[in-house]
Every structure is written in structure tokens, then in C-alpha cells.
């Protein structure tokens, strides 16, 4: 009497199989019921780490020095910015046109900017971000 019309017997649904590294047991326990806010998405710790890393990288490139290793010659301190400038000057001696060398300077600046953005996205990427449960191939 209580069955719906046309209903057929069926087994209880199986527990969704684990999918390895996204196993629920690997997730932290839920601790809040309110919807996440923008603040939750940008924990202060990540912002601090990101800012410190980017500032550190820029300072390292602009002010940093390294002891160069070049064959049997004794190493000496050279500014990192100087090294890159010397590399591009050297390319001029090798016949690389000026516009290519200018392009390389632009690429180096873009690289540093891209690293800053990439680091932020690397820090922000979470498994929740990747996994919408049951999506795609379910």
C-alpha cells in the first residue's frame, strides 16, 4: 500500500567509493555551519606568507648578491641584478639583436610578476576548489 506506483525493488545505494587522495577521511572535521565569507577564503596566515615571499623575492633580486662559482676561479660577491645585466650585454656580443634583448628584460619582469600571482593561486588552491562532489563522471 505504501509503495509508489511503478516502484521496483532496489538495493540500498552504495556508499560512494573513495577516490583516493580526496577521501573524506582526509578532510578536516567541519567546524562551522555558517556560509564561508570572503574573509575565510583569505586566511590572514596565507596573506602574510604570500606578502613576505613576494617582498623577499623582489629584495633578493634587486639587492641580493651571490658568490659566483666559475670553474677554478675563486668565487666573489656579485649583485644578482648585475649578473642579469651582464648576461644580456653578453648576448649583444653574440649578435642577438637589441629588440630580443629588450624582450628578455620584459620577460624577466613579467616572470617576477607572474611568480607573485602564481604563488597566490598556489596558496589558494584547495581540494574543495577542485572537487565538487559527484561531478563529472558520477
Amino acid at each position, binding site marked *: 500500500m505504501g509503495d509508489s506506483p511503478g516502484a521496483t525493488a532496489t538495493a540500498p545505494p552504495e556508499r560512494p567509493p*573513495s577516490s583516493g587522495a580526496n577521501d573524506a577521511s582526509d578532510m578536516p572535521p567541519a567546524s562551522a555551519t555558517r556560509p564561508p565569507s570572503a574573509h575565510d577564503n583569505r586566511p590572514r596566515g596565507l596573506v602574510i606568507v*604570500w606578502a613576505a615571499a613576494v617582498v623577499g623575492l623582489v629584495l633578493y633580486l634587486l639587492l641580493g648578491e651571490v658568490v659566483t662559482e666559475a670553474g677554478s676561479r675563486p668565487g666573489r660577491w656579485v649583485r644578482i641584478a648585475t649578473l642579469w645585466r*651582464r648576461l644580456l650585454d653578453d648576448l649583444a656580443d*653574440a649578435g642577438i639583436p637589441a629588440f630580443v634583448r629588450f624582450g628578455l628584460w620584459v620577460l624577466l619582469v613579467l616572470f617576477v610578476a*607572474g611568480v607573485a600571482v602564481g604563488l597566490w593561486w598556489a596558496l589558494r588552491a584547495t581540494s574543495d576548489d577542485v572537487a565538487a562532489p559527484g561531478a*563529472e*563522471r*558520477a
Partner: protein
Amino acid sequence: MADVAEPGTVPPIRTTGHGFSPGRTLALRGWPSVQRFFWLLLALYVVKQCVFVFAFRPFSGHDEVAHLSYLQTVATEWRVPVLPELDEWRAAVRQGDEPAVDGFPDELYPYCDYALYWHCEPDKPQWALNPPRMVTYLGDYYPTGYQYGANHPPLYYVVMTPLYWASDGLSPVAQHYLLRLAAIPFGMLTVAFAYGMSRVLFPADAFLAVTVPAVVAFQPQISYEAAMVNNDIVSIALYSAILFLMILGIRDRFPYRVCLLLGTTLGLGLLTKSNSLSAIPLIALAVLLSVGWRQVRAWLVRGSLILLPAAVLAAPWYLFLYRTYGNLDGLDQIAALQSYWNKPAGTFFGMLLSWDFIVMRFKETWGEFGWRRIHLTSTLNWIIALPMLVAFAGLIRYLIVAGVARLTDRDEPSPRLERWQWLGVGMLVLTCIVAYLAIIQFGTRFALTQARYFFPVVNAAALLLLFGLRTLIPRAYHAYAQGAVFASGVLLNLFLFTQYIIPHFISL
């Protein structure tokens, strides 16, 4: 349900999360951070590779002289070069002839130091004007400056031929830089397959989706390969595609479409470099274990769909090798030509158990650019090795604990893997073992065995190590670990350039 016979009856394997999907990846709006990171990583990779291309002196990459010379032969003479037969060559020399040999072009003699045993005295006028083609050793004659890469398959050179023609009017150096730039897309493919394989094997894991492609993108030797004139990077990209398709096949129990793609990729790999041969038994085992060895018809059909395109593509090349050299690799001829300086690197078990052998392969994996020219300090090697050892320990610990738990029906540690994921991880482990043993096998005959022969499985090694690392890091710290792995890759590259590479090539 029993193992599956036909694709139509294969029950779909459910996974949570998004698998790798080009259509989804190309969607312009609403990208998750992981996808945004991946595309930015590719853009950063291109920028970094341009620096790699121009920072290294022309032809200083291993065998660039040989590769450009091979390309010249293909592009200008419409044929592949041939190794000289030592006995025939000597007989002709003794009769006073100067036998015609496929050799390196005279204009590349200033770069002889970057070629293998091209007698190199470019400052001496008699050799600068007329580069040496013959040496004597203990009274015997040997050719020098010959095309020792002639036993390499031709695909890379055929693909590069249009670019060679288009740049024909440029100087050899300018043309060389252009050809180096043309290697970058193959490096991008390698990074893309690293991302794709992570997403297929661990569909919902951000840590691996971020760190695996990042490590591959910033691995300095893989980057180096993708910034020089060589067929290795094409081989690496194609082997990466094979591994990606193999994991995809394991997940979906090798549908016919994947089998055909796998066979075609394998065939292209065999036409690029012979180390793709090692993929054949791995693919066969993956198919057998995935569809079930009792399902004879199922694996026979799938095996045929893989082998047929591979054989059709590769057969002409192997027929050519057999007709030209009487063997399928030309290595007998190479061994004879190099006999005045070559010797085996050791015995198989001697190398397998040699600490020095392992250390040298590690050094070549991270430094030793060119033919072992730029050496990293022991301190830096240890800084690189320690996190790798920790990750390796994490992998071994996980495999033992989870494997034992699975076999004894106890609760598995997190993350729990499904059967197909276990198979995928197992095949990647086996892939790395086979690749390493191949290095050793080559060394039983040739002194110049090297870590480069392991590079085609870089994606497998990266995924396994980072999976091992992941098992050691509490989930709450994954975000920081992702940032740390990415930042470490960037810093390592910056450090290598400023500390080693730039000072090696310019006078300060």
C-alpha cells in the same frame, strides 16, 4: 561484477571531483584556483624557457652539434644520415681513399668542444680551415666528427625541417636559437601531461594538481632539454603522453579510443627515440591487470588496437635499421666506432649497488648541464636531495602500511585508494624502476650512460614523490606546502642561473 570483456559493458567508475577535461579547462569563466594556477604556470614556463634558450651558449647543450647536423641532412638531402662501418671505412683509408662519411658540417667546428670526441683544436689554423675527420690511436685509424647520432629515429628532425627551411637564410647561430625555441612547446606538453595525469589519478586533490606540474616545470634538467636542439624533449613529451593515457586507460579499463591513442603515441615515441621501447611491456602489463588476464578476448583486442598503429608507424624505421646495420639499433656500429675511448660503465649489479653510480645520476638529474660541465656543490645537492628523501620515505611508508591494511582487510590509512588507483600507482612505480634499470643496462656497454635516459618518466617520478610528501603533511598545511613547493622551484632556478650558469658563460 567480474572483470570486464567489452567496453559497452564496462560499468563507469565513479569518482568525485573533476577529472581532467580539456573542454572544462578552456572555459573562460569561473576557473578554480587550480586551473588558473596551471595556465599561469604554463605562461611562466614559456618565459623561463626563453631565458634558458638564450642564457646557454650556442651549441653548448649535449649533442646539439649532432642534432643540428642530422637535421641538415634530412632537410637538405631528404634522407637520414648513416653511421660508417668501421672495418669498411678503415679498408678504404688504407687504400689511400678518403671515404665519404656523414659528418658534422665544417662551419660547426668552432663548437667541436660540445660534440663527442670530434678532435678539437679549433685555434690551430690547419684544423680551423680543414676540420679533422680522422684520428689514429695505437696505430689504428678512427673517424672523428662523424654523425654519431645517425642511429636515432627521424621524427624530431622531420618535424623541425619546415622551420629549418624557413630559417635557411639566417646564420647557423641564429638558426640554432630558433630551433631551440621550437623545443619549448614539447616542454609545455610535458607539464600539461603532468597536470593531466595528476587530475586523472587523484581527481580531487589540489595538492598534487598544483605541485606535480610545478615540480616538472621547474625541474632544471627537463627545462634544459626543452630549450635546446634535441630529440630528447620530444621523447619526454611523448612518453609523458603514454603515461597519461596509460593511467586514463587503467581508470576506464582501456576503452578502444584510448587504446588507439596509446598505440599511435607509442608509435610516434618509437620514431623519436628508442627508449620508448621500455613502454611496451609496461602498457601490456597495465592492460592485462586492468581488464583481467582471464578476459583473453578483451586484452587481445585492446593489445591489437595498441600494437597495430605503433607497428605501422615504427616498422619502416626498424626495417631501415635492419637493412642498413643488420641489427635494430645500430649500437654495434657505435660501439666499434667509439672503441678507442669507450668502455662499459660497469657490470649490471655493480652499477645497481654502486653508491657512486647513484650519486652521479642524481647530480646529472639536477646539474651537470651540457656534457657534465656545470657542477653543483655538494651542499646544494643535499639541499635538493633531503626533501626528496623525505618524500620517498613517505611514499614507501604509505605503500607498506596501506598495502598491508588492504591485504588484511583492515582500515586503510588516509588517503584510501580504489583498486584502479592502486594499479595506477603500482604501474608508475614499475615505470620508474624499469627506466632506472634501462640506464644501468645501457651502462653495461657504454661509458656514457646517464640520468637523461630516466627523464621520459619524470612525470611518474614527480607524482610518486609528491604523493609520498602529501601523506606526511596534515591537510591543514597543504596550502602552505603547495606554495613552498612552487616557490622552491622558482628559487632553485634563479639560484642556478645566478650562482652557476651565468658565471659559467660570461667573464665577470
